[in-house]
């Protein structure tokens, strides 16, 4: 049984904000299906009372003093922006 359909792949690509062609959809469906099938070997393990690990070190609430510090200069920040105007980053219109 296939773990993921072409329809799902298109849905996931939309969530990931990736434009994919029909050809890519077909390839990705096959590849993701193989990877997910392989990953399902994890189901051999009983993890009922196992805590998930998101981070290996015992660290909690790393805090620092709330002190004002100088930010990055706008001119520098805009240096890498593909499009900017009057000290702002410019993007295409949100609504057509």
């Amino acid at each position, binding site marked *: 049984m296939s773990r993921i359909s072409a329809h799902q792949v298109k849905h996931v690509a939309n969530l990931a904000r990736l434009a994919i062609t029909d050809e890519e959809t077909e390839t990705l469906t096959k590849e993701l299906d193989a990877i*997910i099938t392989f990953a399902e070997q994890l189901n051999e393990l009983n993890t009922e009372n196992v805590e998930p690990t998101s981070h290996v070190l015992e660290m909690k609430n790393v805090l620092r003093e709330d002190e004002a510090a100088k930010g990055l200069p706008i001119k520098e920040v805009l240096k890498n922006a593909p499009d900017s105007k009057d000290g702002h980053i410019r993007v295409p219109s949100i609504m057509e």
Partner: protein
Amino acid sequence: MSLLDHKAADLHGLLHKKEIKVSDLVDESFKRINQVDHKIKAFLTLNEENARQQALMYDEKFAGGEKLGALFGMPIGIKDNIVTQNIRTTCGSRILENFDPIYDATAVQNLNKAGTITIGKLNMDEFGMGSSNENSAFQKTLNPWNLDYVPGGSSGGSAAAVAAGEVLFSLGSDTGGSIRQPAAFCGVVGLKPTYGRVSRFGLVAFASSLEQIGPITRTVEDNAYLLEALAGVDSMDSTSANVKVPKYTESLTGDIKGLKIGVPKEYLGEGVSAESRNSVLEALKVLEKLGAKWEEVSLPHSKYALSAYYLLSSSEASANLARFDGVRYGYRTDNAKNLIEMYKNTRAEGFGDEVKRRIMLGTFALSSGYYDAYYKKAQQVRTLIKKDFEDVFEKYDVIIGPTAPTPAFKLGEKTTDPLTMYANDILTIPVNLAGVPGISVPCGFAGGLPLGLQIIGRHFDESTVYRVAHAYEQATSFHKEKPYL
């Protein structure tokens, strides 16, 4: 013999005695790059003008008789996912082809304080996703030992440049083996520090809970000097650990009498080539002669590490790489009628196939309805894998096995099926999942290609890892071999 064949401590002595100048080291580095980089293609960007100017400045300091640190004036290369102010940083990706960082990563700041000279930026698999350097958007770095073979990855450029003598050492980053595996394939020394040991501020994030910056060098001693400079807590990285940084070089005593070594049966079993297995068994004999004892142990969940790793690292990548949307930096498509189309086309045109595959896998694993079955399950398995290591470290000082299941493979050999490529990392991935430190040191050759011995230690016990690696290195001569280019 090239000046860059010496270790840092020897060069440091020569600099202080004024027998050589920093400019000589920098000249040698660029001379070697001119001679061999067209063959191995390790560098993406050179920092020649600045490096030469800096060398002249540093020469004046030495001439003035100033007392300077062990790394002062030493030429280094930096993996291209570690940001360097005003030196282009691409991550091996089209999407960052013209990205010019406006600050230095903390690791780079620490190196600058120690006085190293940045020679240039080194090629890598795009965003660190790959084990061969074939996923770089710009060029394929080749193995200096045989140009038909890959240098490993993702820090393939960093390992190849050191092996070829283009720089004295380099920085890499390791998410699932990306320092240790290329170090093994290129016959050099590469350390992945304990998670949290080195600040990740300015390391372009792929999988934040797994990755670390670490040094790639010709000798264990040089590696220890570099970690001394790199390690420490950083207010810019809240996951960096506030744990004292020892003098790692002081642990290089050569004495490993009574050391207890655990050798996981899973690391010498199925999927591991005879060459890799035998080189480890030979290395264990050497360590035994030095007074260490070894026994077979088990890391029973090893076979699940690869699946857990790909789910977790891809999930983290899908979130981390969301920032590449054509707005604040990097590539932006010309082909978009509105904002959403701009995001989608920018990412489709800017990312390579492997990166897209992993973003898709990660987005899927985190998506509604699948989160518990894939992402959470993988995190639970991660707990079991971490526990495997804790159990063994109750009785043993270090764990030893091969770094990779085989020596370097040929270009194109593993590019058709992603799962075949992923399987190359089965012996390095568990170390990242557990967050413990691991080093690869040269331990032999098979068909003219280097093999690596992996030594794994307890959390924050890089000192013992270095002590064992150094004792082994001093008792063998594999690290003295050099590729003919």
